[in-house]
């Protein structure tokens, strides 16, 4: 995998490409290719659709030990990284992503806003490829807790 899957640049910045069903509107990430996965769907085609580039943090963690292949640690020695699950606005799907390098775990809070940025990941033989990352945003306050807390 040499190129970034499912990232596109819109007027307001990078966002993910998922799919949206032409019949029932079901959204999927990564995009469904052949059929809508909603069993109640009357029968539509999944078409590529831009997903909201912001959302609320649903949960988060970090990775203190190097994951096994096919992960390729971008640094040697391995540096722990933060993994964030963000519920896209809409509400859209909850999507996993690394946080940009240097993000402190202590800067994250469930329910706080985050936005998609482009980063790079490492591949075999020193290659790099673009990948989406979740950057935490300054906390908007009030309803954030609720939005992230419901699911």
């Amino acid at each position, binding site marked *: *995998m040499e190129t970034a*899957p499912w990232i596109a640049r819109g007027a307001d910045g990078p966002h993910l490409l998922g799919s949206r069903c032409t019949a*029932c*509107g*079901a*959204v*999927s*990430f*990564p995009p469904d290719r052949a059929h809508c*996965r*909603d*069993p*109640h769907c009357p029968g539509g085609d999944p078409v590529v659709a831009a997903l909201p580039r912001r959302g609320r943090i*649903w*949960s*988060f*963690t*970090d*990775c*203190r*030990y190097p*994951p*096994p*292949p*096919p*992960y*390729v*640690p971008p640094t040697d020695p391995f540096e722990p*990284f933060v*993994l964030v*699950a963000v519920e*896209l606005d*809409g*509400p*859209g*799907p*909850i*999507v*996993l*992503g*690394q946080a940009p390098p240097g993000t402190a*775990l202590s800067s994250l809070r*469930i329910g706080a806003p985050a936005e998609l940025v482009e980063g790079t*990941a490492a*591949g075999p033989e020193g290659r790099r490829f673009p*990948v989406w990352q979740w950057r935490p945003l300054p906390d908007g306050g009030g309803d954030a807790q609720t*939005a992230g*807390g*419901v*699911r």
Partner: protein
Amino acid sequence: MSDVCLIGTGMHPWGKWGRPFTEYGTAAARAALADAGADASEVDFVSGAATVRGGYPGFVAGAAFARALGWRGQQVASSYAACASGAQAIAAARARLLAGLSDMALVVGAESAPKGFFAPLGGDRPDDPDWLRFRLLGAANPLYFALAARRRMELHGARPEDFAAVKAKNAAHGAANPMARYRKRTTAGEVLASPVVADPLHLLDVCATSDGGAALVLVREEDARRRGADPVRLAGLSAAVPEYPVAEPEMPYLAGDPPRAEDGDTGGRAPRFREANARAAFEEAGVGPEDLDLAEVYDLSTAMELDWYEEIGLCPRGGAEGLLRDGATRVGGRIPVNPSGGLASFGEAVPAQGIAQVCEVAAQLRGRAEPERRVEGARVGIAVNQGLFGHGSAAVLTR
């Protein structure tokens, strides 16, 4: 409808023995046959739980076990569903017996595990979510467990001390179990002092991977009675996929499903597959969570054990911490959970683990568990687990 009964169980001790998986499986199978008082020639269906880590024989585990035990022209099947493989192998056996297609089934699962994190197979497979989650995100299993654990802390007030207490409880049970790999007590303090793997989970919060093997001999209830066996009824069994949409990004997916537009943010959500499987198994068995004397739940992480308390109906959502803190889930408590020691004491031997859970429930219902970890007078137990890809299983056993 007649029921199916276990008349024999057998295990090869868990550990890191470094031998082919077939050796553990055949040892377990021989033990199960001996326990059943059955001869191998009586088995007319061999149901193998497959392993993807044992080369080609692992894929056709049913045939591999049948060959190692001595080919007799038996009907055979090999089932795979990651950690739910054992349950699917049991389900295949139960169906054949109930259908009258076979009269005695031998269910076997075994694993010879590599060290360290589970990793996907080699090759470049951008269509495989299990490959993608590693290549794109480095999202090894403990990270998924940690996301759920953090979520639990946020929603229900769990503390790392609670997670550690689960480990301490299970380690105390496992210390008395000769089949367990880790047979020593562990304090909550030791868990909290172990390195963080994925915040908030420590090394001792996350289960290891082990070698091991487990086997069952199953017959129809009337045959069990006729044989004068010491049977345990397999009263309910479910191995179902979830209902769409599934909000949580379940391992190994990169994302969950959003709610349906018409349902809004909170509406129309089906029970999670774990709850759904438990409900289906209870329903088949004609019992409910209030009838349970013990439960074996899949504690891939200590925090996940707390989720299970609620998902199998031991308490309402958010009640697990209270149940744990009250000591209700210790052996001696109101509803002991993982009296075997759980994955905390075994480490996971993927296709064997679901079968081992059933062995444990059977041992308890037969009053054969070691005294230190025995659930006295137990008559109803459940064993639940989950595979990758958001599917899992539940088995209810009664006496």
